[in-house]
């Protein structure tokens, strides 16, 4: 009897010690619904990274996953559940409007939230102290576009959008930056998506005589324009936004017309070159027998790593201290998608967008 009591006592002591050292990190992800493939991969990656960290010893982390179903209402319920589960930080989520529905719940509970795929600018413009994100903002793409255009030496640029709020915003962002830098915007207009014939637009752009064209719309129109531009014997270089990152672009345009087309996009996981990324991708392959498909899910892994680094670096589970550390203490944290620094708003500093170029065989090659 005494022995058993002793064992029980030892066990309960051990678990008490264990509990003190285990830090709970929430994961809010679309495990079901239209973005379920993203959410499933987010969960796989975060759990893999947590296992790796735990195996190293040190602070032990426990992942508490909740499904937001890619739906704002489900997300607010998930946020309420997570905020009662004693989590220090929550990783997630994917869609901007879904994240937005949960932001104030975490903020009131003083839980750190690190969004992973939510790129809408307004999310970090609300002055929320506990909100961070590992993904870029929508306006970053405009900056990278302007940089790419200038490094290509284009002095005169044509900018074409399709009047969707995303494409128009990106076009205006790039236009403003280019004008500041003294690049002449000789053409700025919008096409109507869903049509087939863009010859009138191409003819008009051609007569403006640009050194290059920046198209901020989507891949079906980009493919048609590339093809019709070739038919008309015009060989101006094209740069597209991340909405043209789709293999169907090459199918629509044809390999010959798509050859040399440049586009901006966050890197696909296979193009990540950091040491952390390659060893992670190998571990992922070993465990799940597949390659990670989505960069946004890899950014969820980064969010988890940053949250863990925040707890370790500040030596505390007091979220105010962790948030302070992430904003001012943490410098160049080596994450999967490169080094991470946060500014005062909780936005990631530095460019994630890369330039891709379509080669003669229709493959997207990172530059």
């Amino acid at each position, binding site marked *: 009897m005494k022995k058993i009591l002793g064992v029980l006592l030892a066990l309960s002591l051990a678990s008490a010690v264990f509990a003190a050292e285990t830090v709970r990190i929430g994961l809010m992800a679309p495990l079901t619904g239209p973005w379920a493939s993203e959410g499933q991969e987010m969960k796989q990656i975060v759990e893999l990274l947590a296992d790796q960290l735990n195996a190293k010893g040190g602070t032990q982390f426990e992942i508490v996953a909740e499904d937001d179903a890619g739906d704002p209402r489900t997300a607010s319920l998930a946020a309420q559940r997570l905020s009662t589960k004693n989590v220090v930080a929550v990783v997630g989520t994917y869609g901007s409007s879904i994240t937005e529905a949960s932001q104030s719940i975490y903020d009131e509970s003083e839980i750190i939230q690190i969004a992973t795929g939510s790129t809408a600018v307004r999310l970090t413009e609300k002055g929320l102290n506990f909100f961070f994100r590992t993904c870029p903002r929508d306006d970053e793409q405009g900056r990278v576009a302007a940089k790419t255009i200038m490094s290509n030496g284009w002095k005169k640029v044509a900018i074409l959008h399709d009047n969707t709020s995303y494409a128009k915003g990106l076009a205006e962002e790039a236009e403003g930056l280019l004008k500041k830098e003294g690049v002449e915007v000789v053409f700025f207009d919008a096409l109507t998506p869903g049509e087939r014939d863009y010859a009138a637009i191409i003819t008009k752009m051609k007569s403006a005589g640009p050194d290059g064209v920046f198209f901020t719309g989507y891949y*079906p129109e980009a493919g048609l324009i590339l093809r019709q531009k070739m038919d008309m014997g015009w060989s101006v270089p094209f740069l597209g936004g991340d909405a043209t990152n789709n293999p169907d672009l090459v199918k629509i345009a044809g390999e010959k017309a798509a050859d040399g087309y440049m586009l901006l996009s966050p890197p696909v996981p296979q193009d990540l070159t950091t040491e952390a990324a390659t060893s992670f991708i190998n571990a992922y392959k070993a465990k799940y027998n597949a390659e990670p498909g989505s960069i946004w899910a890899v950014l969820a892994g980064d969010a988890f790593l940053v949250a863990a680094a925040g707890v370790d670096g500040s030596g505390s589970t007091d979220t105010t201290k962790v948030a302070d550390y992430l904003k001012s203490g943490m410098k160049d944290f080596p994450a999967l998608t490169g080094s991470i620094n946060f500014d005062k708003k909780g936005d990631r500093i530095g460019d994630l967008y890369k330039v891709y170029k379509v080669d003669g065989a229709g493959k997207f090659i990172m530059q």
Partner: protein
Amino acid sequence: MEEFVQQLTNGLAVGSIYALIALGYTMVYGVLKLINFAHGDLFTLGAYLGLTLLTSFSLQDKMGPLAAVGLLAIMVMGLVALIGALLDRVAYKPLRESPRLSAVVSALGASIFLQNTVMLIYGARFRVYPQDILPRTVIDFFGMPIPLMRILILLVSLAMMVALYTFIQKTRIGTAIRAAAIDQGAARLMGINVDRVILIVFMVGPALGGAAGLMVGLYYGQINFTMGWVYGLKAFTAAILGGIGNIPGAMLGGLLLGVMEALGAAYISIAWKDAIAFLVLILILIVRPKGILGERVAEKI
């Protein structure tokens, strides 16, 4: 000047496709006073059937591009004509004696049905025609590069329109169609089989629409199940512009709409080109409520 000529050819190529589709709207309206809202989807069907036939028989390998495209056009036009006849039997004939609104609702239903059928069979993603069928030659027109295919599209469309016009004006069936358009009751009394006339109208119009779909597929390469909506809307507008019910009017309206769009895009603003084209439509309808060539009802078709 150079840009003007180029935009003119751009507009004529687009406009000739509008005109081909507009003929289907205008013929049906001429005889039945019905707007066949499913006509745009028959156009889509033409594009998809063309893709299926082309890839499943690999025609261009067997007989060379020119013969392949010719045979393809005949097959697509025949099939879409059959579907058009079937559409009339299923969706419109039972409602012949009903109020006109019922037929319009039935037309909208048929449009939704066809569009979703195409989506379920072929999927919602963009489909792409093989790239290497047509020559991508650019001809030099007084120093202006103009793709040969644009000129061919215009010529083929014009040829079909002339053929249709001759058919309506010179043949017995054409005369019967014109008679039925003027007064169905009187035509019946004269011994004209009006049901047969309607059937022919529902075959010829869709055949032209299907041919337009095939041309769009062959030239632009990219097709999807909603493409009939934009083209249908524009072609319907063209038919109204030219005077609905009037065959030369549909041709003129289509070409005019295409050219207005291209020139509006060129000289005013691309984003506003549809607004400009429709503004011109409104102005023309204010001056001539029956459209440019729209005349007394007795002259229709």
